[in-house]
């Protein structure tokens, strides 16, 4: 996520169409950054950050790959400016990872038994009906 625009070049064609949505998501992100942590659990504090990060990347991914509404130049510009998370998008192109919530949830080296996060387990494989929110990003299930 860029704090400042790094490139001197003017943004490519079509930027003015997606700019308001990007601005809006940025404003939401800033709002959650300044939100007090009181009354929240320790793990809960970062959940909205992960969520908005996911939303922003998803917006650009959909525009370019699904709806084909933006040009390659504009998409590359957004990746280069780190408006969209290239690594996360790279995972979405893989089978079974189409709805991946965040990269921490598939980082097996961070877990005790070398496993993925609970949100990566398909709903049908879980024997309990109880809702589970994962500790990393508050995801309730992102596998198909």
């Amino acid at each position, binding site marked *: 996520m860029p704090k400042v625009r790094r490139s001197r070049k003017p943004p490519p064609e079509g930027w003015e169409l997606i700019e308001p949505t990007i601005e809006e998501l940025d404003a939401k992100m800033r709002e959650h950054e300044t939100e007090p942590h009181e009354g929240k659990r320790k793990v809960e504090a970062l959940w909205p950050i992960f969520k908005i990060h996911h939303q922003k990347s998803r917006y650009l991914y959909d525009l370019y790959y699904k709806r084909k509404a933006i040009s390659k130049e504009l998409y590359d510009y957004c990746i280069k400016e780190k408006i969209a998370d290239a690594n996360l998008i790279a995972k979405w192109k893989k089978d079974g990872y189409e709805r991946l919530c965040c990269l921490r949830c598939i980082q097996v080296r961070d877990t*005790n*038994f070398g496993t993925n996060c609970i949100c990566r387990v398909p709903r049908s494989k879980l*024997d*309990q009906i*109880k*809702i*589970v*929110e994962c500790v990393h990003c508050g995801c309730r299930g992102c596998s198909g």
Partner: protein
Amino acid sequence: MATSLGANTYNRMNWETSDFPILCQTCLGDNPYMRMIRETYGKECTICNRPFTVFRWCPGAKMRYKKTEVCQTCAKTKNVCQTCLLDLEYGLPVQVRDAALKMQDNIPKSDVNREYYQQNNEAALAKTGGSSGAGGKAPNELLMKLARTTPYYKRNRAHICSFWVKGECKRGEECPYRHEMPTDPNDPLANQNIKDRYYGVDDPVAEKLLKRAADMPKLTPPTDKSITTVYVGGLDANIKEQDLRDVFYQYGEIRNINMVTKSGCAFVNFSQRECAEKAVQGAFNKLIIKGRRLKILWGRGQGAPASKPQEEARPLPPVPGLPPSLPQPPPELLAHDFFGLRSDKVPQPPMLRAVAGSVLPPLPGPAGLRMPLIPPPGTHVIHYPSQDPQRLGTNKSRGNDN
């Protein structure tokens, strides 16, 4: 005490590393495929304050994570589970076990003395390699009565949600803690102390158990000396007659065993009264076959069921086709009474005695009805006295009842 593993102080305390925890079945949970996390020198032992290898695991679905609390030396000294501090053999608190076995411990409670004691103890355990518990002795009667037969997994449930108790839990459905009201805080069971439980002093759970042992009912043998039957309840399909025979033959000669599979009980009939008394004394509250604690009671004599008096009072309908009793002779004959035929002396069949005046119509006059009384067919079932097993008179006790 050495504060770090590398510090080389004289006569340094040994830090404990282990590959496997010492745990009871309840603490391990019901899942045979369980994974554990091991952390060497993860925490200090709650009793001896030395760093030890901490194990952490989840004992089954919807249970809370558990971890070992005391080091293996402390656990072996008392022969207790590293997590719940209950005796490994009986699953009972240390205080109850020590009270029952009349064991005394002399673990010093002050710092240096305790360290010295632990050091010596550790060396001794390393030599023998086993626990110093009460193994090898005959099972204690009190412990057998109090011990659980099956693991008590409820102990592993999640803790109560303190936010929910205050009415401010916002997690709702997702909350991993238990949404239940806690027991009364004034209840002595609500405040337990891990050190007290380990040393076996002021343990509220132990006091409760010892009180229960004192209040346990005792079976008094029935006054009827002819009863030699012992009732065994709580059976299931796995327990066969041979299992009961294997247990009860030690008390004396068994006449027969009557299994009632439908109601899950059995009647063990001994040939002698003393044997039955011995069996009840030996097995009451203690008999465990195939993991089931069986209920022992005195049987009732089979010839004297409790519901008998009501049956006796019910008048029986007369048998049709039998001649009624002869009519009274005319009064002029009665006055002479040649043959001792006074009305009160006339022997009558018992059936008629029971129903006299109630079912039979009054006998009409001296020229009485000689025809047998036949009731209209289909009104009621005919009762023949000879069919009644209680009137048979084959058994002496039965005969007395009539």
